[in-house]
């Protein structure tokens, strides 16, 4: 467990490049539509709710609560916990929980974002707040 798990580098594309550029500065970004006011994740250029193209980047607090999770007991890289976090800003995001006791995760628990390095931009994960 002492070996740091190796994560794949995001490929990125023109639509999402700003997210990964911000991640390099430790910022967790979401998209918000200025037409309907809704935030969404993962980021799109066209709002998935009202189809407006007036979407803007917004730095999220990185705080949220666990919506659900599942602890995968075995894998080639050891146990890991996948789940969804409902961000303070509203959207729920898929993630892994890291740097905490995976046996003690609970729905409703408060968590915060942490970034883990890859060979490219760092990836967002969540840990117990």
């Amino acid at each position, binding site marked *: 467990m002492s070996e740091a798990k190796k994560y794949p580098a995001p*490929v990125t594309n023109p639509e999402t490049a700003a997210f990964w550029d911000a991640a390099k500065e430790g910022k967790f970004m979401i998209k918000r539509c200025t037409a309907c006011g809704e935030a969404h994740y993962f980021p*799109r250029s066209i709002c998935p709710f009202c189809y407006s193209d007036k979407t803007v980047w917004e730095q999220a607090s990185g705080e949220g609560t666990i919506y659900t999770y599942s602890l*995968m*007991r075995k894998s080639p890289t050891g146990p890991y916990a*996948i789940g*969804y976090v*409902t961000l303070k800003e509203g959207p729920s995001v*898929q993630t892994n929980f890291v740097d905490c006791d995976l046996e003690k995760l609970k729905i409703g628990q408060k968590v915060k974002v942490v970034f883990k390095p890859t060979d490219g931009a760092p990836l967002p994960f969540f840990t117990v707040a």
Partner: protein
Amino acid sequence: MTIKGKAYIAGIYEHPTRHAPDKSTAQLHAEVAKGAIEDAGISKDDIDGYFCAGDAPGGAWPMVDYLGLNTKKLRHVDSTETGGCSYIIHLGHAAEAIAAGKCSIALVTLAGKPRTGAMPPRAAGAEVDFESAYGATTHNAYGMCAMRHMHDYGTTSEQLAWIKVAASHHAQYNPHAMLKDVVTVEDVLNSPMISDPLHRMDCCVVSDGGGALIVTTPEIARSLKKPLVRLIGHGEAMKGPRGGKDLDLTYSAGVWSGPRAFEEAGITPKDIKYASIYDSFTITVLMQLEDLGFCKKGEGGKFVADGNLISGVGKLPFNTDGGGLCSNHPVNRGGMTKILEAVRQLRGEAHPKVQVKNCDLAIAHGTGGLLGVRHAASTAILERV
């Protein structure tokens, strides 16, 4: 415009193999095609519609060529790919094509060998950078649904275990089933935890194999020798996290595909005598039963408990072949076998120990993809004429 009664399932075949190290995937497709053609009593040269999904090597045109279908006659193809429920969608699409006069005898094939060969790769979606690193698998994606269902509705592992218990009661009579031993709730709870809260026995088997259908017009079906089984309602739907808004993993796209199919058929879940419900995991069945309206949302746990899904014992006999939990799950896609056992029940060809008496209305329902991430669902209502 409706497909109600406009298409009949005239031929079915399920490959008996569960382990095929000495066969190719294309060969398995040919073997199930041949089986369904012979079951229907038609010639392969009469087939004018072909349906296949992502398991067919190379897709529709290489398969049409490999299978030696009559290209002078073949005039309709459909390679809709929605994972495990693709074949239930194909059944509906075949009925639409038949009703529109675009083909008259359609062949649908599924085959592959996840136990003894490579699985076909899947193209990445727009979400890839934001999800692929987190290792969503079938086990943990369905585990996430079960975890939240338990949280919201008090569903228990014991209740989920009853689904496996019922499947095992049926599988003991299926000579081809991978797992023929009858199991208890305790057996399920004592099996190793795979991805919380799902135990090993909450998970389906991994098997080689396949199956095929012949779908045709009422007139052609009546000219053949098999008992008449027709499609009277069909629905399909999709669901995903949709930008993360109002995420709710306790229901599936079955809440939309089910009512569409029942409305078209003009019946309700109470009328159903036999149910084929996709059972990739026990939680899949529980959620689908709720979503299809066999019980209220959140009451699936009570509904499946105490043997209510066991043929001859409970109110809703399900997956009387043993289903994916015990019999087979060819290419990790359970939609085809759901249709096949429903047709056997309607024909009166199920094993006598599990055959439902006077079985005149059945449902075959499946999902594809990951219920915990994004998925499709399809529902077919079938009637014995």
